[in-house]
Protein backbone atom coordinates (compact mmCIF):
# COMPACT_ATOMS: atom_id res chain seq x y z
CA UNK A 1 0.00 0.00 0.00
CA UNK A 2 2.65 2.43 1.07
CA UNK A 3 4.78 1.31 -1.87
CA UNK A 4 1.99 2.14 -4.23
CA UNK A 5 1.39 5.59 -2.83
CA UNK A 6 5.09 6.24 -2.87
CA UNK A 7 5.23 5.19 -6.48
CA UNK A 8 2.25 7.36 -7.28
CA UNK A 9 3.79 10.28 -5.50
CA UNK A 10 7.04 9.92 -7.37
CA UNK A 11 5.16 9.65 -10.64
CA UNK A 12 3.24 12.77 -9.85
CA UNK A 13 6.45 14.46 -8.93
CA UNK A 14 8.02 13.46 -12.21
CA UNK A 15 5.02 14.75 -14.05
CA UNK A 16 5.27 18.05 -12.25
CA UNK A 17 8.91 18.39 -13.15
CA UNK A 18 8.53 17.66 -16.84
CA UNK A 19 4.94 18.90 -17.07
CA UNK A 20 4.88 22.11 -19.01
CA UNK A 21 1.73 23.95 -19.82
CA UNK A 22 1.71 22.15 -23.17
CA UNK A 23 1.87 18.75 -21.51
CA UNK A 24 -1.04 19.62 -19.26
CA UNK A 25 -2.95 20.78 -22.29
CA UNK A 26 -2.20 17.58 -24.19
CA UNK A 27 -3.31 15.34 -21.33
CA UNK A 28 -6.60 17.18 -21.07
CA UNK A 29 -7.06 17.81 -24.77
CA UNK A 30 -10.15 15.66 -25.31
CA UNK A 31 -11.88 16.96 -22.21
CA UNK A 32 -11.10 20.51 -23.27
CA UNK A 33 -12.57 19.89 -26.71
CA UNK A 34 -15.68 18.45 -25.05
CA UNK A 35 -16.10 21.70 -23.14
CA UNK A 36 -15.45 23.85 -26.17
CA UNK A 37 -19.01 24.13 -27.56
CA UNK A 38 -20.37 25.21 -24.17
CA UNK A 39 -17.53 27.69 -23.66
CA UNK A 40 -18.12 29.11 -27.13
CA UNK A 41 -21.83 29.39 -26.33
CA UNK A 42 -21.21 31.42 -23.20
CA UNK A 43 -18.57 33.55 -24.88
CA UNK A 44 -21.00 34.53 -27.63
CA UNK A 45 -24.31 34.82 -25.78
CA UNK A 46 -23.15 35.91 -22.32
CA UNK A 47 -19.72 37.52 -22.51
CA UNK A 48 -19.86 39.31 -25.87
CA UNK A 49 -22.88 41.44 -24.82
CA UNK A 50 -21.18 42.55 -21.59
CA UNK A 51 -18.99 45.32 -23.12
CA UNK A 52 -22.25 46.55 -24.67
CA UNK A 53 -23.08 47.99 -21.27
CA UNK A 54 -20.86 50.87 -22.37
CA UNK A 55 -24.16 52.04 -23.90
CA UNK A 56 -25.12 53.17 -20.40
CA UNK A 57 -22.51 55.93 -20.54
CA UNK A 58 -23.32 57.39 -23.95
CA UNK A 59 -26.29 59.03 -25.61
CA UNK A 60 -26.84 56.36 -28.23
CA UNK A 61 -28.22 57.22 -31.62
CA UNK A 62 -28.60 54.76 -34.42
CA UNK A 63 -26.74 56.67 -37.17
CA UNK A 64 -23.55 57.23 -35.15
CA UNK A 65 -23.50 53.72 -33.68
CA UNK A 66 -22.01 52.69 -30.35
CA UNK A 67 -18.60 54.27 -30.84
CA UNK A 68 -19.72 57.44 -32.63
CA UNK A 69 -22.43 58.47 -30.17
CA UNK A 70 -21.45 61.15 -27.63
CA UNK A 71 -20.10 60.08 -24.24
CA UNK A 72 -22.22 61.50 -21.41
CA UNK A 73 -20.73 59.86 -18.31
CA UNK A 74 -23.34 59.26 -15.61
CA UNK A 75 -25.98 61.45 -17.24
CA UNK A 76 -28.32 58.50 -17.92
CA UNK A 77 -28.16 57.38 -14.29
CA UNK A 78 -28.75 60.93 -13.12
CA UNK A 79 -31.83 61.08 -15.34
CA UNK A 80 -33.14 57.78 -13.96
CA UNK A 81 -32.71 58.97 -10.39
CA UNK A 82 -34.18 62.44 -11.03
CA UNK A 83 -37.33 61.09 -12.71
CA UNK A 84 -37.83 58.64 -9.86
CA UNK A 85 -37.91 55.76 -12.35
CA UNK A 86 -35.02 53.92 -10.77
CA UNK A 87 -36.59 53.97 -7.32
CA UNK A 88 -40.01 52.88 -8.63
CA UNK A 89 -38.52 50.02 -10.67
CA UNK A 90 -36.33 48.84 -7.82
CA UNK A 91 -39.19 49.00 -5.35
CA UNK A 92 -41.60 47.09 -7.60
CA UNK A 93 -39.06 44.43 -8.56
CA UNK A 94 -37.92 43.83 -4.99
CA UNK A 95 -41.43 43.94 -3.52
CA UNK A 96 -42.78 41.41 -6.01
CA UNK A 97 -39.82 39.10 -5.49
CA UNK A 98 -40.11 39.32 -1.70
CA UNK A 99 -43.77 38.38 -1.93
CA UNK A 100 -42.99 35.55 -4.35
CA UNK A 101 -40.17 34.18 -2.21
CA UNK A 102 -41.76 34.45 1.23
CA UNK A 103 -45.34 33.47 0.40
CA UNK A 104 -44.10 30.95 -2.15
CA UNK A 105 -41.88 29.09 0.30
CA UNK A 106 -44.49 29.13 3.07
CA UNK A 107 -47.12 27.68 0.74
CA UNK A 108 -44.68 25.14 -0.70
CA UNK A 109 -43.86 23.92 2.80
CA UNK A 110 -47.55 23.75 3.68
CA UNK A 111 -48.34 21.72 0.57
CA UNK A 112 -45.40 19.36 1.16
CA UNK A 113 -46.37 18.78 4.80
CA UNK A 114 -50.03 18.18 4.02
CA UNK A 115 -49.17 15.98 1.05
CA UNK A 116 -47.17 13.84 3.45
CA UNK A 117 -50.24 13.36 5.63
CA UNK A 118 -52.35 11.95 2.81
CA UNK A 119 -52.81 8.19 2.86
CA UNK A 120 -54.61 7.40 -0.39
CA UNK A 121 -51.95 6.70 -2.98
CA UNK A 122 -54.24 7.41 -5.90
CA UNK A 123 -55.46 10.72 -4.47
CA UNK A 124 -51.89 11.78 -3.73
CA UNK A 125 -50.71 11.01 -7.22
CA UNK A 126 -53.58 12.70 -9.04
CA UNK A 127 -53.50 15.83 -6.91
CA UNK A 128 -49.73 16.09 -7.30
CA UNK A 129 -50.04 15.81 -11.07
CA UNK A 130 -52.71 18.51 -11.13
CA UNK A 131 -50.65 20.82 -8.93
CA UNK A 132 -47.68 20.55 -11.30
CA UNK A 133 -49.83 21.37 -14.30
CA UNK A 134 -49.50 25.20 -14.17
CA UNK A 135 -45.72 24.88 -14.20
CA UNK A 136 -45.70 23.24 -17.61
CA UNK A 137 -47.52 25.87 -19.65
CA UNK A 138 -46.18 28.94 -21.38
CA UNK A 139 -46.42 32.44 -20.01
CA UNK A 140 -48.59 33.31 -23.01
CA UNK A 141 -51.26 30.87 -21.92
CA UNK A 142 -51.14 32.24 -18.38
CA UNK A 143 -51.92 35.66 -19.79
CA UNK A 144 -54.84 34.21 -21.71
CA UNK A 145 -56.19 32.43 -18.63
CA UNK A 146 -56.04 35.66 -16.64
CA UNK A 147 -57.94 37.38 -19.45
CA UNK A 148 -60.56 34.63 -19.27
CA UNK A 149 -61.15 35.39 -15.64
CA UNK A 150 -60.64 39.16 -15.49
CA UNK A 151 -61.88 40.51 -18.83
CA UNK A 152 -64.41 43.31 -18.33
CA UNK A 153 -66.89 42.12 -20.96
CA UNK A 154 -66.78 38.34 -20.74
CA UNK A 155 -64.60 37.45 -17.76
CA UNK A 156 -65.65 34.79 -15.31
CA UNK A 157 -65.21 37.15 -12.36
CA UNK A 158 -67.58 39.76 -13.72
CA UNK A 159 -70.00 37.01 -14.75
CA UNK A 160 -70.14 35.85 -11.14
CA UNK A 161 -70.36 39.40 -9.77
CA UNK A 162 -73.24 40.24 -12.10
CA UNK A 163 -75.14 37.09 -11.26
CA UNK A 164 -74.88 38.20 -7.62
CA UNK A 165 -76.26 41.57 -8.62
CA UNK A 166 -72.98 43.44 -8.18
CA UNK A 167 -71.23 45.95 -10.43
CA UNK A 168 -68.64 44.51 -12.84
CA UNK A 169 -65.03 45.44 -12.14
CA UNK A 170 -62.69 47.17 -14.57
CA UNK A 171 -59.66 45.17 -13.50
CA UNK A 172 -57.42 46.09 -16.43
CA UNK A 173 -57.56 49.78 -15.50
CA UNK A 174 -57.25 49.38 -11.71
CA UNK A 175 -53.56 49.54 -10.76
CA UNK A 176 -54.17 48.61 -7.14
CA UNK A 177 -55.63 45.23 -8.00
CA UNK A 178 -52.52 44.03 -9.81
CA UNK A 179 -50.08 43.30 -7.00
CA UNK A 180 -52.63 40.78 -5.71
CA UNK A 181 -53.33 39.32 -9.14
CA UNK A 182 -49.66 38.97 -10.01
CA UNK A 183 -48.71 37.39 -6.68
CA UNK A 184 -51.72 35.04 -6.75
CA UNK A 185 -50.91 33.94 -10.28
CA UNK A 186 -47.31 33.33 -9.33
CA UNK A 187 -48.38 31.23 -6.35
CA UNK A 188 -50.83 29.31 -8.52
CA UNK A 189 -48.06 28.51 -10.95
CA UNK A 190 -45.11 27.85 -8.66
CA UNK A 191 -46.48 26.26 -5.48
CA UNK A 192 -47.07 22.71 -6.69
CA UNK A 193 -43.77 22.30 -8.47
CA UNK A 194 -41.80 24.15 -5.79
CA UNK A 195 -43.19 21.88 -3.07
CA UNK A 196 -41.26 18.94 -4.58
CA UNK A 197 -38.00 20.02 -2.94
CA UNK A 198 -39.63 20.18 0.49
CA UNK A 199 -41.53 16.96 -0.08
CA UNK A 200 -38.28 15.22 -1.01
CA UNK A 201 -36.71 16.59 2.18
CA UNK A 202 -39.59 15.18 4.26
CA UNK A 203 -39.05 11.80 2.57
CA UNK A 204 -35.50 11.92 3.92
CA UNK A 205 -36.79 12.18 7.49
CA UNK A 206 -35.97 9.10 9.55
CA UNK A 207 -39.18 7.19 10.21
CA UNK A 208 -37.88 5.95 13.55
CA UNK A 209 -37.86 9.47 14.96
CA UNK A 210 -41.49 9.94 13.97
CA UNK A 211 -42.47 6.60 15.46
CA UNK A 212 -40.58 7.30 18.67
CA UNK A 213 -42.42 10.59 19.02
CA UNK A 214 -45.74 8.86 18.48
CA UNK A 215 -44.95 6.30 21.16
CA UNK A 216 -44.11 9.18 23.49
CA UNK A 217 -47.62 10.44 22.88
CA UNK A 218 -47.03 13.24 20.39
CA UNK A 219 -50.15 13.96 18.39
CA UNK A 220 -50.16 14.77 14.68
CA UNK A 221 -49.95 18.53 15.23
CA UNK A 222 -47.03 18.16 17.64
CA UNK A 223 -45.32 15.81 15.23
CA UNK A 224 -45.53 18.41 12.45
CA UNK A 225 -44.68 21.31 14.71
CA UNK A 226 -41.72 19.74 16.53
CA UNK A 227 -40.28 17.24 14.05
CA UNK A 228 -41.24 17.92 10.44
CA UNK A 229 -40.99 21.72 10.39
CA UNK A 230 -37.62 21.89 12.22
CA UNK A 231 -36.40 19.20 9.83
CA UNK A 232 -37.28 21.47 6.87
CA UNK A 233 -35.65 24.54 8.36
CA UNK A 234 -32.18 24.13 6.77
CA UNK A 235 -33.70 23.55 3.32
CA UNK A 236 -35.89 26.60 3.81
CA UNK A 237 -33.01 28.84 4.82
CA UNK A 238 -30.79 27.73 1.95
CA UNK A 239 -33.53 28.13 -0.66
CA UNK A 240 -34.46 31.49 0.85
CA UNK A 241 -30.92 32.81 0.65
CA UNK A 242 -30.46 31.60 -2.90
CA UNK A 243 -33.66 33.26 -4.04
CA UNK A 244 -32.71 36.44 -2.18
CA UNK A 245 -29.60 36.49 -4.37
CA UNK A 246 -31.89 36.98 -7.36
CA UNK A 247 -34.09 39.59 -5.76
CA UNK A 248 -33.38 42.17 -8.48
CA UNK A 249 -34.23 39.79 -11.32
CA UNK A 250 -37.87 40.29 -12.19
CA UNK A 251 -40.29 37.72 -13.59
CA UNK A 252 -40.74 39.35 -16.99
CA UNK A 253 -42.79 36.58 -18.64
CA UNK A 254 -45.43 36.53 -15.95
CA UNK A 255 -45.91 40.27 -15.60
CA UNK A 256 -45.65 41.08 -19.29
CA UNK A 257 -48.26 38.50 -20.26
CA UNK A 258 -50.60 39.36 -17.41
CA UNK A 259 -50.51 43.11 -17.82
CA UNK A 260 -50.11 43.41 -21.58
CA UNK A 261 -47.55 45.24 -23.64
CA UNK A 262 -48.66 48.86 -23.40
CA UNK A 263 -51.10 49.17 -20.53
CA UNK A 264 -49.77 52.49 -19.23
CA UNK A 265 -52.57 52.75 -16.66
CA UNK A 266 -50.94 49.97 -14.65
CA UNK A 267 -47.27 51.00 -14.77
CA UNK A 268 -47.27 52.50 -11.28
CA UNK A 269 -47.79 49.11 -9.66
CA UNK A 270 -46.62 46.65 -12.31
CA UNK A 271 -43.54 48.14 -13.96
CA UNK A 272 -40.41 46.19 -13.03
CA UNK A 273 -36.81 46.48 -14.22
CA UNK A 274 -37.28 43.94 -17.01
CA UNK A 275 -40.43 45.50 -18.44
CA UNK A 276 -38.81 48.94 -18.39
CA UNK A 277 -35.70 47.71 -20.22
CA UNK A 278 -37.88 45.85 -22.70
CA UNK A 279 -39.90 48.99 -23.42
CA UNK A 280 -36.82 51.16 -23.74
CA UNK A 281 -35.61 48.74 -26.41
CA UNK A 282 -38.80 47.88 -28.31
CA UNK A 283 -41.04 50.94 -28.03
CA UNK A 284 -39.00 53.99 -26.96
CA UNK A 285 -35.76 53.01 -28.74
CA UNK A 286 -33.79 54.57 -25.89
CA UNK A 287 -31.01 52.01 -25.82
CA UNK A 288 -28.84 53.99 -23.41
CA UNK A 289 -31.43 54.33 -20.65
CA UNK A 290 -32.26 50.63 -20.93
CA UNK A 291 -28.59 49.71 -20.64
CA UNK A 292 -28.12 52.00 -17.67
CA UNK A 293 -30.92 50.20 -15.82
CA UNK A 294 -29.42 46.82 -16.80
CA UNK A 295 -25.98 47.81 -15.54
CA UNK A 296 -27.45 49.00 -12.25
CA UNK A 297 -29.35 45.71 -11.96
CA UNK A 298 -26.30 43.57 -12.72
CA UNK A 299 -23.90 45.37 -10.37
CA UNK A 300 -26.32 45.66 -7.49
CA UNK A 301 -27.51 42.08 -8.01
CA UNK A 302 -23.92 40.87 -8.02
CA UNK A 303 -23.30 42.46 -4.64
CA UNK A 304 -26.44 40.87 -3.25
CA UNK A 305 -25.46 37.39 -4.48
CA UNK A 306 -22.04 37.75 -2.88
CA UNK A 307 -23.69 38.69 0.40
CA UNK A 308 -26.18 35.82 0.21
CA UNK A 309 -23.42 33.35 -0.59
CA UNK A 310 -21.34 34.66 2.28
CA UNK A 311 -24.31 33.98 4.58
CA UNK A 312 -24.82 30.49 3.16
CA UNK A 313 -21.17 29.69 3.67
CA UNK A 314 -21.42 30.77 7.28
CA UNK A 315 -24.51 28.65 7.89
CA UNK A 316 -23.77 25.55 5.84
CA UNK A 317 -20.45 25.53 3.96
CA UNK A 318 -21.27 22.47 1.80
CA UNK A 319 -24.14 24.36 0.16
CA UNK A 320 -22.29 27.53 -0.71
CA UNK A 321 -21.80 28.27 -4.38
CA UNK A 322 -18.19 29.42 -4.28
Amino acid at each position, binding site marked *: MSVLTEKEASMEHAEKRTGSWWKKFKNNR*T*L*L*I*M*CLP*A*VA*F*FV*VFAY*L*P*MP*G*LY*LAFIKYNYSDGIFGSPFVGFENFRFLVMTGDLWRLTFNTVAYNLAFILLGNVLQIAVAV*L*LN*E*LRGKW*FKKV*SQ*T*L*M*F*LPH*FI*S*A*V*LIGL*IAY*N*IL*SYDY*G*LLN*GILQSLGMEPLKVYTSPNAWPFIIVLTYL*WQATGYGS*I*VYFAAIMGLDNEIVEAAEID*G*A*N*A*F*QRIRHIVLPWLKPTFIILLLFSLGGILKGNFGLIYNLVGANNTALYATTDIIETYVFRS*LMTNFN*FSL*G*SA*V*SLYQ*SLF*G*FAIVLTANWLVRKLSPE*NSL*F
Partner: protein
Amino acid sequence: MDMIDEKTQSSRRATDRSGLIIRGISYICIGGFALCCLLPFLLVLGTSLTSEAAVKKYGFNFWPKEFSTFAYKIVLENPGQILGSYAVTMGITIVGTAVGLLIVAMTGYALQRPDFLFRNKISFFIYFTTLFSGGLVPFYLLITQYLHLKDNYLAVLLPGLLSPFLIIMMKSFVRSIPHAITESAKIDGAGDFTIFVKLILPMTTPALATIGLFIALGYWNEWYNSMLFLSADMQYRPLQLYLYNVVTKADAIRNSAAASNVPLSDVPIETMKMAIAVIATGPVILFYPFVQRYFIKGITVGAVKG
Protein backbone atom coordinates in the same frame (compact mmCIF):
# COMPACT_ATOMS: atom_id res chain seq x y z
CA MET B 1 -49.20 -0.51 35.57
CA ASP B 2 -52.86 0.06 34.88
CA MET B 3 -52.31 3.79 35.14
CA ILE B 4 -49.57 3.76 32.51
CA ASP B 5 -51.63 1.62 30.20
CA GLU B 6 -54.53 3.96 30.50
CA LYS B 7 -52.27 6.91 29.84
CA THR B 8 -50.76 5.47 26.68
CA GLN B 9 -54.18 4.43 25.54
CA SER B 10 -55.65 7.85 25.98
CA SER B 11 -52.66 9.48 24.31
CA ARG B 12 -52.97 6.98 21.50
CA ARG B 13 -56.56 8.02 21.10
CA ALA B 14 -55.52 11.65 21.08
CA THR B 15 -52.97 10.82 18.40
CA ASP B 16 -55.65 9.10 16.38
CA ARG B 17 -58.02 12.01 16.66
CA SER B 18 -55.41 14.66 15.76
CA GLY B 19 -54.25 12.38 12.97
CA LEU B 20 -57.76 12.25 11.60
CA ILE B 21 -58.15 16.01 11.84
CA ILE B 22 -54.88 16.68 10.07
CA ARG B 23 -55.71 14.10 7.44
CA GLY B 24 -59.06 15.76 6.85
CA ILE B 25 -57.39 19.16 6.53
CA SER B 26 -54.89 17.67 4.11
CA TYR B 27 -57.54 16.15 1.89
CA ILE B 28 -59.50 19.40 1.79
CA CYS B 29 -56.52 21.72 1.23
CA ILE B 30 -54.64 19.56 -1.25
CA GLY B 31 -57.79 18.57 -3.10
CA GLY B 32 -58.96 22.17 -3.20
CA PHE B 33 -55.66 23.49 -4.44
CA ALA B 34 -55.36 20.72 -7.05
CA LEU B 35 -58.82 21.70 -8.28
CA CYS B 36 -57.75 25.36 -8.46
CA CYS B 37 -54.87 24.28 -10.66
CA LEU B 38 -57.16 22.41 -13.02
CA LEU B 39 -60.16 24.74 -13.29
CA PRO B 40 -58.55 27.54 -15.37
CA PHE B 41 -57.71 24.98 -18.03
CA LEU B 42 -61.30 23.77 -18.05
CA LEU B 43 -62.34 27.40 -18.44
CA VAL B 44 -60.25 27.73 -21.60
CA LEU B 45 -61.43 24.36 -22.91
CA GLY B 46 -65.08 25.06 -22.08
CA THR B 47 -65.00 28.46 -23.75
CA SER B 48 -63.38 27.04 -26.87
CA LEU B 49 -66.37 24.70 -27.21
CA THR B 50 -68.99 27.41 -26.74
CA SER B 51 -70.73 29.35 -29.48
CA GLU B 52 -69.49 32.92 -29.87
CA ALA B 53 -73.02 34.22 -29.29
CA ALA B 54 -73.24 32.46 -25.94
CA VAL B 55 -69.85 33.89 -24.93
CA LYS B 56 -71.03 37.39 -25.84
CA LYS B 57 -74.19 36.86 -23.82
CA TYR B 58 -73.04 34.96 -20.74
CA GLY B 59 -69.27 35.44 -20.75
CA PHE B 60 -66.60 32.78 -20.42
CA ASN B 61 -67.67 29.64 -18.62
CA PHE B 62 -66.51 26.18 -17.65
CA TRP B 63 -69.46 24.42 -19.16
CA PRO B 64 -70.58 25.47 -22.66
CA LYS B 65 -74.06 27.03 -22.48
CA GLU B 66 -74.37 26.51 -26.23
CA PHE B 67 -72.06 23.79 -27.46
CA SER B 68 -70.27 24.60 -30.71
CA THR B 69 -67.13 23.48 -32.49
CA PHE B 70 -67.29 26.44 -34.88
CA ALA B 71 -64.06 27.97 -33.55
CA TYR B 72 -62.12 24.76 -34.19
CA LYS B 73 -63.73 24.50 -37.63
CA ILE B 74 -62.53 28.00 -38.57
CA VAL B 75 -59.03 27.31 -37.22
CA LEU B 76 -58.76 23.95 -38.97
CA GLU B 77 -60.45 25.05 -42.19
CA ASN B 78 -57.23 26.84 -43.06
CA PRO B 79 -54.79 24.63 -41.22
CA GLY B 80 -51.75 25.95 -43.07
CA GLN B 81 -50.95 28.58 -40.47
CA ILE B 82 -51.22 26.42 -37.39
CA LEU B 83 -49.60 23.41 -39.03
CA GLY B 84 -46.72 25.62 -40.12
CA SER B 85 -46.30 26.92 -36.59
CA TYR B 86 -46.45 23.37 -35.25
CA ALA B 87 -43.77 22.29 -37.71
CA VAL B 88 -41.51 25.22 -36.79
CA THR B 89 -41.84 24.62 -33.05
CA MET B 90 -41.34 20.87 -33.41
CA GLY B 91 -38.31 21.36 -35.62
CA ILE B 92 -36.72 23.82 -33.22
CA THR B 93 -37.55 21.60 -30.25
CA ILE B 94 -36.13 18.41 -31.77
CA VAL B 95 -32.94 19.90 -33.18
CA GLY B 96 -32.34 22.15 -30.17
CA THR B 97 -32.92 19.36 -27.65
CA ALA B 98 -30.60 16.93 -29.45
CA VAL B 99 -27.77 19.43 -29.85
CA GLY B 100 -28.23 21.04 -26.44
CA LEU B 101 -28.39 17.69 -24.66
CA LEU B 102 -25.14 16.53 -26.26
CA ILE B 103 -23.35 19.75 -25.28
CA VAL B 104 -24.71 19.75 -21.71
CA ALA B 105 -23.81 16.08 -21.21
CA MET B 106 -20.27 16.46 -22.59
CA THR B 107 -19.58 19.58 -20.57
CA GLY B 108 -21.14 18.23 -17.39
CA TYR B 109 -19.09 15.06 -17.59
CA ALA B 110 -15.80 16.81 -18.37
CA LEU B 111 -16.29 19.35 -15.58
CA GLN B 112 -16.99 16.58 -13.07
CA ARG B 113 -13.75 14.68 -13.89
CA PRO B 114 -11.38 15.16 -10.93
CA ASP B 115 -8.36 14.78 -13.21
CA PHE B 116 -9.45 17.56 -15.57
CA LEU B 117 -7.09 20.40 -14.79
CA PHE B 118 -9.21 23.23 -16.11
CA ARG B 119 -12.45 22.16 -14.51
CA ASN B 120 -12.58 24.83 -11.83
CA LYS B 121 -11.68 27.60 -14.23
CA ILE B 122 -14.26 26.56 -16.82
CA SER B 123 -16.90 25.93 -14.17
CA PHE B 124 -16.44 29.43 -12.85
CA PHE B 125 -16.38 30.86 -16.37
CA ILE B 126 -19.82 29.32 -16.93
CA TYR B 127 -21.19 30.08 -13.49
CA PHE B 128 -20.17 33.72 -13.67
CA THR B 129 -22.74 34.32 -16.42
CA THR B 130 -25.51 33.86 -13.85
CA LEU B 131 -23.97 36.54 -11.63
CA PHE B 132 -23.41 39.26 -14.16
CA SER B 133 -25.01 39.87 -17.52
CA GLY B 134 -25.00 42.50 -20.22
CA GLY B 135 -28.76 42.78 -20.11
CA LEU B 136 -31.31 42.83 -22.86
CA VAL B 137 -30.17 45.74 -25.03
CA PRO B 138 -26.62 44.53 -25.83
CA PHE B 139 -27.99 41.00 -26.30
CA TYR B 140 -30.54 42.29 -28.77
CA LEU B 141 -27.93 44.29 -30.68
CA LEU B 142 -25.62 41.27 -30.78
CA ILE B 143 -28.27 38.99 -32.29
CA THR B 144 -29.66 41.52 -34.76
CA GLN B 145 -26.70 43.67 -35.80
CA TYR B 146 -23.65 41.48 -35.31
CA LEU B 147 -24.91 37.92 -35.84
CA HIS B 148 -27.60 39.10 -38.31
CA LEU B 149 -30.13 36.58 -37.02
CA LYS B 150 -33.24 38.77 -37.20
CA ASP B 151 -36.09 36.75 -38.72
CA ASN B 152 -33.96 33.63 -38.49
CA TYR B 153 -35.09 30.59 -36.48
CA LEU B 154 -31.51 30.29 -35.21
CA ALA B 155 -32.17 33.36 -33.04
CA VAL B 156 -34.63 31.19 -31.09
CA LEU B 157 -32.77 27.90 -31.34
CA LEU B 158 -29.25 28.96 -30.34
CA PRO B 159 -29.87 30.91 -27.10
CA GLY B 160 -32.04 28.06 -25.75
CA LEU B 161 -29.46 25.30 -26.19
CA LEU B 162 -28.02 25.26 -22.70
CA SER B 163 -27.88 27.03 -19.39
CA PRO B 164 -25.56 26.98 -16.38
CA PHE B 165 -28.41 25.39 -14.42
CA LEU B 166 -28.54 22.37 -16.74
CA ILE B 167 -24.77 21.92 -16.70
CA ILE B 168 -24.77 22.01 -12.89
CA MET B 169 -27.59 19.46 -12.94
CA MET B 170 -25.60 17.15 -15.23
CA LYS B 171 -22.58 17.53 -12.95
CA SER B 172 -24.66 16.44 -9.96
CA PHE B 173 -25.90 13.39 -11.84
CA VAL B 174 -22.40 12.40 -12.99
CA ARG B 175 -21.05 12.80 -9.45
CA SER B 176 -22.90 9.63 -8.45
CA ILE B 177 -20.83 7.57 -10.92
CA PRO B 178 -17.59 6.39 -9.30
CA HIS B 179 -14.50 7.87 -10.90
CA ALA B 180 -12.91 4.38 -10.73
CA ILE B 181 -14.98 3.40 -13.77
CA THR B 182 -13.36 6.12 -15.84
CA GLU B 183 -9.96 5.29 -14.41
CA SER B 184 -10.12 1.56 -15.17
CA ALA B 185 -11.28 2.29 -18.72
CA LYS B 186 -8.34 4.66 -19.12
CA ILE B 187 -5.95 1.94 -17.97
CA ASP B 188 -7.51 -0.29 -20.63
CA GLY B 189 -6.50 2.36 -23.11
CA ALA B 190 -9.85 3.99 -23.86
CA GLY B 191 -9.85 7.66 -24.86
CA ASP B 192 -11.84 10.27 -22.96
CA PHE B 193 -14.48 10.66 -25.63
CA THR B 194 -14.90 6.89 -26.01
CA ILE B 195 -15.36 6.58 -22.25
CA PHE B 196 -17.98 9.31 -22.37
CA VAL B 197 -19.95 7.74 -25.24
CA LYS B 198 -19.61 4.05 -24.40
CA LEU B 199 -19.57 4.08 -20.59
CA ILE B 200 -20.95 7.30 -19.17
CA LEU B 201 -23.87 7.98 -21.51
CA PRO B 202 -25.48 4.54 -21.01
CA MET B 203 -25.16 4.95 -17.25
CA THR B 204 -26.77 8.37 -17.19
CA THR B 205 -29.90 7.77 -19.27
CA PRO B 206 -32.29 8.99 -16.53
CA ALA B 207 -30.19 12.15 -16.26
CA LEU B 208 -30.22 12.59 -20.02
CA ALA B 209 -34.00 12.13 -20.11
CA THR B 210 -34.41 14.72 -17.36
CA ILE B 211 -32.15 17.30 -18.96
CA GLY B 212 -33.56 16.63 -22.42
CA LEU B 213 -37.09 17.20 -21.14
CA PHE B 214 -36.07 20.47 -19.47
CA ILE B 215 -34.61 21.70 -22.77
CA ALA B 216 -37.57 20.46 -24.80
CA LEU B 217 -40.14 22.08 -22.51
CA GLY B 218 -38.18 25.31 -22.74
CA TYR B 219 -38.34 25.26 -26.53
CA TRP B 220 -41.99 24.27 -26.67
CA ASN B 221 -43.00 27.16 -24.40
CA GLU B 222 -40.51 29.60 -25.92
CA TRP B 223 -42.07 32.96 -26.81
CA TYR B 224 -39.61 35.58 -25.53
CA ASN B 225 -36.79 35.28 -28.08
CA SER B 226 -39.39 34.60 -30.76
CA MET B 227 -41.13 37.85 -29.92
CA LEU B 228 -37.83 39.76 -29.87
CA PHE B 229 -36.34 38.44 -33.09
CA LEU B 230 -39.04 37.04 -35.38
CA SER B 231 -41.09 39.81 -36.96
CA ALA B 232 -44.44 39.72 -38.68
CA ASP B 233 -42.64 39.34 -42.01
CA MET B 234 -42.14 35.67 -41.28
CA GLN B 235 -44.83 33.42 -42.62
CA TYR B 236 -44.58 30.73 -39.95
CA ARG B 237 -43.73 31.73 -36.44
CA PRO B 238 -43.33 29.40 -33.45
CA LEU B 239 -46.49 28.18 -31.79
CA GLN B 240 -46.39 30.36 -28.67
CA LEU B 241 -45.71 33.51 -30.67
CA TYR B 242 -48.57 32.60 -32.97
CA LEU B 243 -50.80 32.20 -29.92
CA TYR B 244 -49.51 35.48 -28.49
CA ASN B 245 -50.38 37.32 -31.68
CA VAL B 246 -53.82 35.76 -31.88
CA VAL B 247 -54.52 36.76 -28.29
CA THR B 248 -53.29 40.33 -28.54
CA LYS B 249 -54.28 41.12 -32.12
CA ALA B 250 -57.85 39.84 -31.90
CA ASP B 251 -58.03 42.11 -28.89
CA ALA B 252 -56.91 45.02 -31.00
CA ILE B 253 -59.52 44.23 -33.67
CA ARG B 254 -62.25 44.05 -31.07
CA ASN B 255 -61.24 47.33 -29.48
CA SER B 256 -61.01 49.27 -32.71
CA ALA B 257 -64.29 47.83 -33.96
CA ALA B 258 -66.02 48.73 -30.71
CA ALA B 259 -64.67 52.28 -30.87
CA SER B 260 -65.85 52.96 -34.43
CA ASN B 261 -69.16 51.10 -34.13
CA VAL B 262 -68.26 48.94 -37.11
CA PRO B 263 -70.25 45.70 -36.94
CA LEU B 264 -67.97 42.77 -36.37
CA SER B 265 -67.91 40.09 -39.00
CA ASP B 266 -68.90 36.59 -38.05
CA VAL B 267 -65.37 35.68 -36.99
CA PRO B 268 -65.67 34.07 -33.55
CA ILE B 269 -62.73 36.01 -32.12
CA GLU B 270 -63.02 35.02 -28.46
CA THR B 271 -63.65 31.33 -28.93
CA MET B 272 -60.97 31.11 -31.62
CA LYS B 273 -58.35 32.40 -29.17
CA MET B 274 -59.29 29.60 -26.80
CA ALA B 275 -59.36 26.97 -29.53
CA ILE B 276 -55.86 27.92 -30.66
CA ALA B 277 -54.67 27.90 -27.04
CA VAL B 278 -56.06 24.37 -26.64
CA ILE B 279 -54.38 23.21 -29.84
CA ALA B 280 -51.05 24.79 -28.87
CA THR B 281 -51.00 23.50 -25.28
CA GLY B 282 -52.79 20.17 -25.64
CA PRO B 283 -49.72 18.05 -26.45
CA VAL B 284 -47.80 19.26 -23.41
CA ILE B 285 -50.71 18.63 -21.04
CA LEU B 286 -51.39 15.17 -22.44
CA PHE B 287 -47.73 14.24 -22.43
CA TYR B 288 -46.42 15.58 -19.14
CA PRO B 289 -48.09 13.15 -16.68
CA PHE B 290 -46.00 10.40 -18.26
CA VAL B 291 -42.72 12.24 -17.81
CA GLN B 292 -43.29 14.31 -14.68
CA ARG B 293 -41.12 11.97 -12.61
CA TYR B 294 -38.12 13.20 -14.61
CA PHE B 295 -38.98 16.80 -13.82
CA ILE B 296 -39.32 15.85 -10.15
CA LYS B 297 -35.90 14.25 -10.26
CA GLY B 298 -34.42 17.27 -12.00
CA ILE B 299 -35.61 19.80 -9.45
CA THR B 300 -34.60 17.69 -6.46
CA VAL B 301 -31.10 17.27 -7.88
CA GLY B 302 -30.67 20.79 -9.17
CA ALA B 303 -32.62 22.90 -6.70
CA VAL B 304 -30.29 23.40 -3.82
CA LYS B 305 -27.18 23.77 -5.95
CA GLY B 306 -29.03 25.58 -8.71
